[in-house]
């Protein structure tokens, strides 16, 4: 068909054919994730060949696991992943919106409008949309307080499994977790490093018994059972070196002439480690965590010194503990004099460190750290899949909260913002006298796919609801006295239009802007393609390459 006598060994597809193929692929992807959008969206179960099961509602996770093969569709998946990294939420929306934009663009191109015109129009529309959100639709958060944060987290959670029953609990957990990470080291503002949120999954109990625990739960047992189960107050030493018998580095050989010496070497090996431990203990430490091993024979020194030691603690845990307790991670003990010493100022402080049991696992609890309060989110659930999904949902919710705190601007959710922007763009389009007008009008139409999908998922009459929604927004924008109507979105439980802002369905403005930007970028990238050349695999080297 489209293949021509090309000098390369492969197939070529170009023009309208490739555009249609690409658009079809993207729409197919969007159809897959479509049903997971919104508070009444459903989950997907993904099974890999080994038989491991993932149950999820998170667009990014679904797409990552689906193994999309079509090149254009892959592009879309990558963009969704980017949204996931940047905003953490709204991946499903990006895919749906991008696919809709593409579908409409393809129609325009079919009716003989050059792709570059469409592209220019889309760009213009995107810029106008973002500007409009920032200038008119967004509300600063300063006057909203904690309630707003909880509401935003709830909105993010509403579409997840946690949303149906426990959204209050988990929204509060998300907000608390993010607030606890607050650090205002930098002069220019507060930082909320999400990476320091510690989550622990434990099967059993019920999801509603998930909690945010004061203190840090370290998933590691005591190195020896003869150690005490609790120490208080705890002085914590974080070590990054081995507490096994000291041995020479590989390739270093000690050559002796006097046989008497050999025992001395051996004794030195043990004594060196013993001395190190003693130095640490003498500095006052009674809790020792190391990323490396501890020799069995060295454990006695800790038990004798009434100290708890844990070996093979991960670096991630170490860093978090260090931040919370004010400890400094020691990578070796050498000091400037060439001796080995341990400075007591390196120790971290906490009120208590004790061993506890969560389910069948032994964990160390670090309570009341001195420098910064630290929390652990403990997720409970009936099985692994559910715990995993809970974690994913909660991560999304925390990133939404973080965005809220960073940007200080919120918008109403539930399709409100899309409908408002769509109405605005329609008016904007009519002001332009060029060919871009058509593209902008289509862009405006495309935005409505979000409220439409929401309504369809809720098994409501989409046509009717969206028409009502548009009418409300057009009124809001034409009549300045009814400006509050611009916050109206869909109430999916009742199938009606309501003021979502007052109902507490809110999202960070940044997230929405990013959704529109990413979706447009994705659509444009795919739209620009008019030629696809696929090389045949070389028979002999094919496998090696793959």
């Amino acid at each position: 068909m489209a293949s021509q006598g090309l000098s390369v060994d492969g197939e070529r597809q170009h023009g309208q054919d490739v555009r249609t193929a690409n658009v079809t692929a993207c729409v197919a992807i969007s159809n897959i994730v479509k049903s997971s959008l919104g508070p009444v969206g459903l989950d997907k179960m993904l099974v890999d060949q080994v038989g491991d099961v993932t149950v999820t509602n998170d667009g990014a996770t679904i797409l990552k696991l689906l193994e999309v093969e079509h090149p254009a569709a892959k592009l879309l998946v990558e963009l969704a992943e980017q949204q996931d990294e940047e905003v953490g939420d709204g991946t499903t929306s990006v895919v749906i919106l991008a696919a809709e934009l593409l579908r409409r663009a393809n129609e325009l191109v079919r009716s003989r409008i050059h792709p570059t015109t469409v592209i220019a129009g889309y760009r213009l529309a995107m810029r106008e949309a973002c500007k409009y959100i920032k200038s008119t639709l967004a509300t600063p958060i300063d006057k909203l307080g904690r309630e707003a944060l909880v509401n935003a987290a709830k909105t993010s959670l509403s579409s997840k499994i946690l949303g149906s029953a426990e959204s209050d609990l988990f929204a509060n957990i998300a907000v608390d977790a993010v607030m606890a990470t607050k650090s205002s080291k930098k002069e220019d503002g507060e930082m909320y490093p999400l990476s320091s949120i510690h989550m622990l999954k434990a099967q059993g109990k019920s999801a509603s018994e998930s909690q945010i625990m004061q203190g840090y739960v370290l998933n590691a047992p005591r190195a020896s059972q003869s150690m005490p189960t609790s120490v208080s107050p705890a002085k914590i030493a974080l070590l990054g070196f081995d507490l096994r018998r000291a041995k020479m580095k590989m390739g270093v050989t000690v050559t002796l002439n006097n046989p008497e010496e050999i025992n001395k070497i051996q004794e030195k090996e043990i004594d060196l480690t013993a001395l190190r431990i003693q130095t640490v203990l003498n500095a006052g430490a009674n809790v020792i965590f190391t990323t490396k091993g501890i020799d069995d024979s060295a454990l006695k020194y800790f038990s004798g010194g009434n100290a708890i030691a844990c070996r093979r603690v991960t670096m991630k845990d170490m860093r978090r503990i260090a931040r919370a307790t004010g400890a400094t991670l020691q990578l070796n003990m050498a000091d400037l004099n060439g001796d080995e010493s341990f400075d007591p100022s390196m120790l971290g402080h906490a009120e208590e460190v004790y061993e506890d049991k969560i389910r069948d696992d032994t964990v160390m609890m670090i309570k009341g750290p001195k420098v910064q309060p630290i929390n652990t989110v403990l997720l409970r659930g009936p099985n692994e899949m559910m715990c995993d999904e809970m974690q994913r949902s909660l991560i999304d919710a925390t990133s939404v909260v973080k965005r809220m705190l960073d940007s200080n601007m919120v918008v109403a959710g539930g399709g409100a913002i899309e409908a408002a922007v769509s109405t605005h763009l329609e008016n904007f389009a009519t002001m332009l006298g060029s060919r871009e007008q058509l593209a902008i009008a289509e862009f405006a139409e495309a935005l409505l796919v979000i409220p439409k999908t929401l309504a369809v998922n809720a098994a409501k009459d989409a046509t009717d609801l969206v028409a009502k929604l548009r009418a409300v927004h057009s009124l809001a924008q034409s009549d300045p006295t009814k400006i509050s109507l611009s916050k109206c979105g869909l109430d999916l439980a009742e199938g009606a239009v309501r003021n979502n802002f007052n109902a507490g369905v809110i999202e960070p403005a940044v997230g929405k802007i990013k959704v529109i930007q990413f979706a447009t970028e994705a659509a444009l990238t795919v739209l620009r393609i008019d030629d696809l050349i696929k090389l045949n695999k070389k028979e002999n080297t094919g496998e090696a390459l793959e």
Partner: protein
Amino acid sequence: MQAPVLVLNEQTQRDTGRRAQLTNIAAAKAVSEIIRTTLGPRAMLKMILDASGGIVLTNDGNAILREIDVNHPAAKSIIELSKTQDEEVGDGTTSVSVLAGELLSLSEQFLERNIHPTVVVNGFFRALNDAVAIAEELSMQIDVNKPGELDKVVASCVGTKYVSRYGDLMVKIAIDAVNTVKVEDGDRITADFKNYAKVEKIPGGDLNESKVLSGVMFNKDVVSGTMRRRIENPRIILLDTPVQYQKGESQTNIELTKGEDFQRLMELEEEYVQKICEDILKFNPDVVISEKGISDLALHFFSKKNVSCIRRLRKTDNNRVARACGATIVSRTDELKESDVGTGAGLFEVSKIGDEYFTYVVDCKDAKACSIVLRGGSKDVLNEVERNLQDAMCVARNVVKKPTLVCGGGAIEMAISHALMEKSKSIEGVVQQPYQAVAQALEVIPRTLVENCGASVVRVMTALRAKHANGENTTFGVDGMKGEVVDMRTLGLFEPLEVKTQTIKTSVEAAAMLLRIDDVVSGITRKQDPASGPVQHDDDD
């Protein structure tokens, strides 16, 4: 025309919408169907042949489901429930799968009537919260220190198991073991029987000979036959290092230039061992136990002083010995102290059972660890007895930690079911139906009990429902032996609240999760399948 555009890997299979939901439900039902017959005192065992030809004989829900190999993802998730239940509370593993299966099969009707799954899930969660509250309301506190109270609870757990014939004995064993390892630290009570109560299975003899030792035993003999095999009030030294010459960690070469030097080197090795032995012998031990090896030379020193030695003991066993006789495990002999020597044991004895030697360190004064010796016909039977005992110990631990009980024999389920039904009348909207479904599903427990003992299901169930009808008689349940409706208080059938609430929570949440799924994609990642590698590019034209 355009050829079809292939977006996904061709090998993936997709089930969407209704089809996905129905196959999930069918799979979950199939799993719960398998283990239904193992519920209650008239339960039957399952015999499972595993891939390597071994046999598992059991009626423990978790043990059965662990062994069977299922493919369907939804079935897998049901199986995992049993695991969760087992790890969290240790008992009720069968009930949880049965209940989850029943819930799903009852929700099938909702999907057929086009009720949105999120609405169903919503109803489930509301019912769950109420059910847990009701269960707590109906629960009662007991005093664990009062003799006989704890026995009753453990007895009703043991009653449904294979070992029910030896019920009293098993109850005694479980309670003794838990009491031995129980540690009260302020308001934290821990009973770590996983580490400190070891079950030793010795085939042969009779189940009646099983007992909890006031100390520990392990499958080892003294190193040489001439050593003493019976010592009263022994002084025990525990080591975790070898009593033999040990090379250093660093790589060392020795250049020997004289013949005498070589001689000296040999002597040094001997001196080293001798020194260790002298260090140990200074404390006049009767028994020396090492986790590692003991060299012949060291044995010579020890047997001269009439010290019995045991070598290569497992770390976990050594820990138990330490806790039983009050010794500290020592790693450097030159740091040995008088306080490290264990003097708590009353008797050290090696005895021969069957073909093997077993070492007993018993009659300990304040043992914080123990061994449970199980005797019985064959290995398979012993394995099952061990599993039963684990469940019984879990129940005992749960009660010791949280002494709140509910009535067993389906009484609590029936009571919750009735209360939920009453409450559902005040719920408006479609949610009411799934809410009632939870109530209905709970009846599956008494129903299965009746079914398994061969009584008339309809008659007994209606009688039971009538008993509960006006919200009174909440303690009436099914006697799983006779198939009659009786007051559980007279029968003395109680179960820990924690097990019951956990069962309901886990099954409802898992059912809710499966219901929310509308798309099953399987067969992703084809890493192990190199044959499909070259075919992977789709033919677009």
